[in-house]
């Protein structure tokens, strides 16, 4: 999944204009030696994830370079088997989660717009609202942005810079980072590939990650 993005704006800093090729999370085997997944979901994953996920495991862990099963976009949903009593989780626990997800859904329907304490805290409902969490590697706190406030990628980039670069010790330069986002399928995507409106409607959370972590991901490995 190669993403070469060219922008009309050819500014020196290249926050989103990048030659980085972005694959699935966790495929980097750099010093952090994580073969596991950079964007841990807080909600159950979609079916698609399972089919491709195992393939990612095989690719990195078994070091098989050519694994063509990792084309996330094309992977069809895998029907999940239902086995009674497996995984072995108490019904009480399952019913608590059912109550939790019911609450989240009812919250999403009574959405408020711009409040300091936003209701769109959960990743399943962020697509309905417009506030999404923004995390930056190395920063202790997350922020929230309202995607509706921006007309395009440039404004968003400027806002993120203002939030993170000026507020931290200033040693970080945003050109060292790549901005990625988690879409509503739970996949990690590079910001900038699709028209801004489409991005804004599918973006669940933003993550500003170090370039070094993002380098080497994606179709180059296949």
């Amino acid at each position, binding site marked *: 999944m190669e993403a070469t993005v060219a922008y009309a704006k050819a500014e020196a800093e290249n926050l989103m204009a990048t030659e980085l090729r972005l694959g699935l999370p966790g495929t980097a085997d750099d010093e952090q030696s994580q073969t*596991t997944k950079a964007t841990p979901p807080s909600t159950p994953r979609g079916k698609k994830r399972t089919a491709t996920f195992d393939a990612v495991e095989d690719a990195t862990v078994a070091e098989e370079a050519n694994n063509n099963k990792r084309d996330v976009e094309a992977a069809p949903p895998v029907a999940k088997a239902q086995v009674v009593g497996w995984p072995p989780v108490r019904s009480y626990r399952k019913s608590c989660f059912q109550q*939790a997800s019911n609450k989240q859904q009812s919250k999403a329907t009574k959405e408020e717009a711009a409040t300091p304490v936003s209701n769109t805290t959960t990743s399943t409902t962020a697509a309905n609202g417009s506030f999404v969490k923004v995390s930056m590697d190395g920063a202790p706190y997350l922020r929230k942005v309202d995607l509706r406030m921006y007309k395009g990628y440039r404004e968003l980039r400027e806002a993120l810079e203002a939030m993170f670069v000026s507020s931290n010790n200033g040693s970080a330069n945003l050109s060292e980072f790549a901005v990625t986002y988690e879409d509503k399928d739970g996949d990690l995507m590079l910001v900038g590939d699709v028209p801004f409106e489409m991005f804004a409607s599918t973006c669940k959370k933003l993550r500003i990650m170090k370039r070094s972590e993002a380098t080497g991901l994606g179709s180059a490995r296949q």
Partner: protein
Amino acid sequence: MTYFPEEVVEHIFSFLPSHSDRNTVSLVCKVWFPKLRVLTVKGKPHFADFNLVPPDWGGYAAPWIEAAARGCVGLEELRMKRMVVSDEGLELLARSFPRFKALVLISCEGFSTEGLADIASHCKFLRELDLQENDVEDRGPRWLSCFPDSCTSLVSLNFACIKGEVDSASLERLVAKSPNLRSLRLNRAVSVDTLSKILMHTPNLEDLGTGNLTDEFQTESYLRLTNALEKCKMLKSLSGFWDASPVCVPFIYPLCHQLTGLNLSYTPTLDYSDLTRMISRCVKLQRLWVLDCISDKGLQVVASSCKDLQELRVFPSDFYVAGYSAVTEEGLVAISSGCPKLSSLLYFCHQMTNDALITIAKNCPNFIRFRLCILEPRKPDAMTNQPLDEGFGAIVRECKGLRRLSISGLLTDKVFMYIGKYAKHLEMLSIAFAGDSDDGMMHVLNGCKNLRKLEIRDSPFGDGALLGNVAKYETMRSLWMSSCNVTLKGCEILASKMPMLNVEIMNELDGSSEMEENPGDFSKVEKLYVYRTTAGARGDAPNFVKIL
């Protein structure tokens, strides 16, 4: 023993430290029954937790309560697990025992908040009302108001599993007049503001289960909460976090450094960064329950922060058979490396490797409980595609004190050979989708000298294994086998050889009528439950249970 005066016998027994010894002793003589102060009863088989036991199987509390009401009115404590308890039973309990002090119900069902109202109303000296993970029918909040003004003895109150609303004013009044309260676990309906008010009355609180911590509250509410929490200098254990918003996390920070127990496993709304920000501050943590959204990376944070960790449970957030999990062998290896005191583990994960298990075994030889659940049945070593026999073999070999083990992933008879050979202190073994032949089960029955409970599902063990060491079952508490290869004939033979055992079979699909028509046939038995009995077959078995 009956030649000695009772006072002497009692004095001798007071030297028995362990419950199991006392249990054994109490079975010997009915004379001692009337003096019973504490009664613990467990009902359904463990696999009932996972819906493998059909409803109405049994485990009714009523006969026990009735017998106690007739015979031992000095009863002070009743603890029940996986039983079916009715409101009538609770009412009888409340009215029959004038000195009753403690009721603990774990994973029970069949009662409602009205039964609790009776307990509250009539147990004047109630110290402990501990409701853990029960399925309670909600008939309104009245029960909490039923504690009389004279009842000031509460030490422990846990109603986290109550689904419905709770009257805040009643709750505040109750807490205000309970100066000895050490443990308080609230339910989802209790707001942040109510929690803050309550905490002003509980300076000695050691264990708290919060109400809901959503983001619907203003910052001022959370500031009040922090102030209230800071007054609880003795607070060591925290749970609840119902619907917790990430916003609430920083307000808990002042408590973190003193926590020894933390349960975040009912909070799918906190992700790995929220969790690690909290947990990295919990440097004294001994017990941690989390969801797998913590991810391997988060577990590394736990490993570097929580050096005193003894118990870890990582639960799945996705309940599908081969669901996604952000947690793999790497997280556990990190934990084992950073937390050498780890002795109790329940770990749901996406994958495992032999190398990881071998490393873990070397890092943590003190495991007493090791329960590993790889979400996809029969999944092999993620790196080598081999069975995980060697990995689990390392665990049983290194962890000489291992008492409880649950295995998963791709496993052959070899792992059972290791278990039989090395797991000499093993008391409980859970097997699912494992093994190749009867030899596997035989290794366990022959080798594990201290085995008390064996539960097996979906594994190819048949009559040969079932009948290979029948005397063993008299030394065990129970055997469960479901979706294995045992036949009706095999079960009949077992029942005829061992009259001291109840051999229960359950076939849900119109099996009972078939069984009548074709005695001794070789049709497979869907579910088998074998246990010792001194009283013969039980009288409360439903239609689908046949006791041979």
